[in-house]
């Protein structure tokens, strides 16, 4: 875990602690949104190629403990993990083609549901803002939407075909029920329920003709206001996209997303992860072992928003940075960023 400070106008990133436990690469992590405030110590989850999931909790000012190891469930790499908005449920997805849903009962985590359906590796999972929908995606090129029913039952409500390759990540929009997916086919797709609420369909594809990426898109993240998103790619760029927020929330049809700008020349290896903090800082994790921060350049005279590099932390890890995630905690000017 890391802490960032603003020192004499310059950002610095300091490693707080190196958390050991996993015996294979750590692919993903996620902060529990119900922790880190109101006296509840922050908690995050990590998942790994060692087939386990670990829960970490802050125990002191600069120290973290592993509170639980969820093992003997997934039979292959656990690729991604996500907490429900309430923080009560945890979804983990695996190369074993399953999605496991866990609930903390007493001191332990129990697997309360296993979702099957994908034909092969499941790569990402995301809960909708209301917590009533869950989305997964994988190498079978499909995106699945599940509805959460009482008693921890999950019904598949739609299997979305459209991507022509492996789908790397799914992410629900923070304030509307729009689902975004990004893929090995170089595109980002937006999915919405049709007018009748009968089924889901692709309402937009952001590809090369929209100034889109020219190689695998690995991840996407929304701005705090939800009217912008950043995507990262094997094409070594970050792209910022935007929409008309008013129209998006008005309910009068779909508000399309358009390309705002491309951040090129900052990365020389695949960008695996990106996350936009509540304070407006974009963090990227790349295959050159570095973490980089970007923010809007308010002083730029260029037409339209432009972004600048705030900080580059080389050798942040000994190997690729697979996942970067801002916590929701803000203590003065410190930010906690939890990498694998």
């Amino acid at each position, binding site marked *: 875990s890391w802490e960032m400070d603003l020192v004499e106008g310059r950002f610095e990133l300091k490693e707080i602690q190196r958390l050991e436990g996993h015996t294979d690469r750590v692919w993903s992590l996620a902060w529990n949104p119900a922790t880190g405030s109101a006296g509840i110590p922050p908690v995050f989850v990590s998942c790994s190629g060692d087939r386990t999931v670990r829960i970490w909790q802050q125990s002191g000012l600069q120290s973290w403990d592993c509170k639980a190891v969820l093992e003997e469930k997934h039979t292959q*790499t656990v690729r991604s993990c996500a907490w429900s908005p309430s923080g009560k449920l945890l979804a983990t997805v695996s190369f074993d083609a399953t999605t496991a849903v866990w609930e903390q009962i007493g001191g332990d985590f129990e697997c309360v549901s296993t979702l099957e359906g994908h034909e092969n590796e499941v790569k990402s999972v995301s809960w909708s803002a209301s917590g009533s929908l869950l989305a997964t995606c994988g190498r079978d090129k499909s995106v699945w939407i599940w509805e959460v029913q009482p008693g921890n039952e999950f019904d598949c409500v739609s299997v979305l075909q459209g991507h022509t390759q492996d789908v790397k990540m799914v992410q629900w929009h923070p304030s509307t029920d729009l689902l975004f997916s990004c893929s090995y086919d170089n595109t980002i797709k937006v999915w919405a329920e049709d007018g009748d609420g009968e089924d889901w369909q692709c309402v937009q594809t952001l590809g090369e003709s929209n100034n889109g990426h020219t190689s695998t898109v690995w991840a996407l993240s929304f701005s705090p206001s939800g009217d912008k998103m950043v995507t990262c790619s094997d*094409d070594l760029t970050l792209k910022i996209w935007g929409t008309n927020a008013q129209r998006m929330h008005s309910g009068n049809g779909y508000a399309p997303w358009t390309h705002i700008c491309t951040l090129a020349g900052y990365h020389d290896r695949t960008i695996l992860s990106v996350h936009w903090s509540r304070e407006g800082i974009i963090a990227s994790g790349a295959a050159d072992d570095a973490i980089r921060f970007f923010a809007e350049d308010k002083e730029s005279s260029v037409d339209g928003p432009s972004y600048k590099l705030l900080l580059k932390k080389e050798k942040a890890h000994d190997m690729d940075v697979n996942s970067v995630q801002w916590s929701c905690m803000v203590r003065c000017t410190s930010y906690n960023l939890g990498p694998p």
Partner: protein
Amino acid sequence: MTLGLINANPVVHAKKERIARSEDVHPADDAVDPLEIYDILLSLYLFSLSILDCSFLSVLSEESITVDEKLGRILITFTPTIQHCSMATVIGLCLRVKLKDCFPPHFKVDIKVSPGSHANEESGNWKLEPSFFSIHVASLSPPTILLNDKERVAAALENPNLRQLVDECIYSNEL
């Protein structure tokens, strides 16, 4: 196994003068010996000759291997004789597994699968950026894209059948 094209005369360019190396190779060594990589490629070539009717590697030479020790980057290019994506991918996976133990962990390895000159439909702009051996250019072959996608490689190596094939390839010929 019947194969589409039989390359009766695969070309293996003669290695430049070989320097005797000690048997004692430590992964922690900072010096990366391109000859070592060449040995691995050559062994894979010989392996494919010994168990198959022909080799999948047509052109193999020291130019296939580029090392930048300062940046910690390695680029390996090989050319399969047969335009059969799945076999090129298996060879590439064998390379990845074998090479993982050969270098310090911070070294990044990129693998490029070049189509042969007769594969018109797959040739494209094979521009390389020499400054950092970027292979992030248009028209990369499907096996290249796959072999440089760490997630696809990791998942492929968790497939028991594929893993067994890769292990046989690596261990049976004492690479």
